[in-house]
């Protein structure tokens, strides 16, 4: 739904993100160059480099010109330079991004699908023993922070039983290719994905179950039952499909949660994605990377939300009349 309201919301969010990135380092006491570039840069700093950087950020000019320089660089896709990695921030992040996308994408799909199915089954049997057990079980699961789940899985399946690798996304220097490589990637992916999926299963489950309970009271369910439809059709096609709608609207917010969840899980498994990069950058006080990650993650979450808003009326035509 591309309403004016939503556009304003996303514009405000974007402005907040950009201004936080712009003003925060410049408001710090001391040399702004230091706050923008971090300790690492000072070691590598020559007078020429310093002069170049001051010019690049227009640091000797008034604030509004600095702002102009900032936006100009941003539009050119220039997120700055990391002296810690000795590479442009954008290429450092892009190098890590595929792993995070793989991790987040797989977990998001798995946790949403599993959550919906469990929610439908649980809501269908509402009030029964199975339903109550599932509800209590999944709500308890929800209490486990993703990094704790990750560490438990790591210790059980990695350290104790040695079924899955302990760290990383690939076996280093293995020279694998083709199917063997794919298998290696999946083996490394398994535990982080399991941790993230388990940690984020509950929101989808609870939401589907709640909607399921209200949907089951609808008159059309009675009609469908009276037509003598099979239980499977009633459960999944009539009740289930309608219970999925609120889940779709929430997926946008979950994208944000799963991405931040990935940050912790990547740290536990030393999985070389954007989250682990952030952790390393925090340790090294590599400000350009932290800023770059912040900008990319925040904007991706905004875009994901925006796309879901767009797709929603296609799933539920009633929405387009509501505005």
């Amino acid at each position, binding site marked *: 739904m591309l309403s004016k309201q939503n556009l304003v919301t996303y514009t*405000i969010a974007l402005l*907040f993100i950009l201004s936080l990135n712009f003003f925060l380092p410049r408001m710090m006491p001391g040399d702004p160059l230091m706050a923008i570039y971090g300790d690492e840069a000072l070691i590598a700093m020559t007078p020429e480099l310093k002069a170049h950087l001051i010019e690049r950020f227009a640091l000797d000019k008034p604030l509004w010109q600095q702002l102009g320089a900032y936006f100009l660089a941003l539009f050119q896709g220039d997120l700055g330079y990391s002296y810690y990695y000795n590479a442009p921030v954008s290429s450092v992040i892009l190098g890590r991004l595929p792993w995070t996308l793989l991790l987040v994408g797989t977990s998001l799909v798995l946790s949403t699908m599993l959550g919906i199915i469990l929610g439908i089954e649980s809501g269908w049997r509402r009030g029964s023993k199975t339903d109550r057990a599932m509800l209590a079980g999944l709500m308890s699961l929800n209490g486990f922070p993703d990094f704790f789940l990750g560490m438990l899985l790591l210790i059980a399946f990695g350290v104790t039983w040695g079924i899955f690798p302990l760290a990383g996304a690939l076996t280093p220097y293995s020279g694998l290719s083709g199917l063997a490589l794919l298998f290696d990637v999946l083996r490394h992916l398994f535990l982080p994905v399991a941790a993230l999926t388990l940690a984020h299963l509950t929101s989808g489950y609870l939401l589907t179950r709640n909607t399921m309970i209200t949907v089951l009271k609808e008159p059309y369910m009675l009609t469908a039952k009276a037509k003598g439809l099979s239980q499977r059709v009633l459960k999944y096609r009539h009740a289930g499909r309608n219970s999925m709608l609120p889940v779709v609207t929430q997926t946008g917010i979950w994208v944000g949660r799963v991405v931040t969840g990935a940050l912790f899980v990547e740290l536990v498994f030393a999985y070389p994605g954007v989250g682990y990069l952030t952790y390393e950058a925090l340790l090294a006080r590599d400000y350009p990377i932290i800023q770059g990650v912040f900008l990319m993650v925040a904007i991706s979450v905004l875009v994901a939300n925006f796309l879901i808003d767009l797709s929603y009326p296609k799933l539920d035509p009633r929405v387009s009349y509501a505005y």
Partner: protein
Amino acid sequence: MHIDLKKEIKESGPGKTGLFILLLMVAMALLAPVIAPYNPYQQSTTSLLPPSLSHWLGTNHVGQDIWSRLVFGARTSLLVGFGVGILSTLLGTIFGVSAALVGGLYEKVLMRIVDAFIVIPMIIVIILISAYIRPSILTLILFLSLLSWQGGARIMRAQALSLKERGNVAAAKSFGASHFYIAWRHVVPDLGPILLVDFIYGVRRAVFMEAGLAFLGITDPTVVSWGMMMRDALSFSYLNVWQWWLVPTGVALSLTIIGLTFVGHAAEPVIEPRLRGAEVA
């Protein structure tokens, strides 16, 4: 509000369990100096000891007593949790109710800002800020509150909008009551149970966040917290120390969050009455 919150929680099995867990944790936090046998910050040369009668959960890598740290860690978690819960519910009520009562441009602008903040992932913002400003417990409470009142404000506004149409408000208006008077005397008292649900979920979110941030190393290094203990334990996951170092800490944290989830869920029919009778647990 014709739903009795106390009854709602008492009648739900998980609700009672949750309340019990929470009271236990609060008691642990309040009585920490009495329960803990050692000073949680006292280092010693006897590091990585297994559990024994003198050290119930052994000692960590710098020889601190893990059980004492666990007990004192409850203080940090609950302090941040309740601090953020109170502050963000307060902010949510102020902005939500004022938006509903004042209306007009004020409401429009405020609600767009609220929506914008709901989409931005909070943890990422805090990570960025704390890269520049090392948070103390107090500033952490402040940051978390400023970033987490928005969801509550939405619910509060929706509720206040319907309360606004009631007879008592119309009567008060006809006597020339101010917005503030109406909010204070006629709207906020009727928000009661919703405030509590918002507060419980606010506490839960903050406990979660505090632990996660401490796990990333974003915390006051001089104050013991569960997230920090788990981060320390992670570096020793190849030893068997996780059994009495990582697991009890993680379980304490998870139990606290589960307790809050159960109480919050039991109280949820207050917001969504259609869910009533959904589980006769």
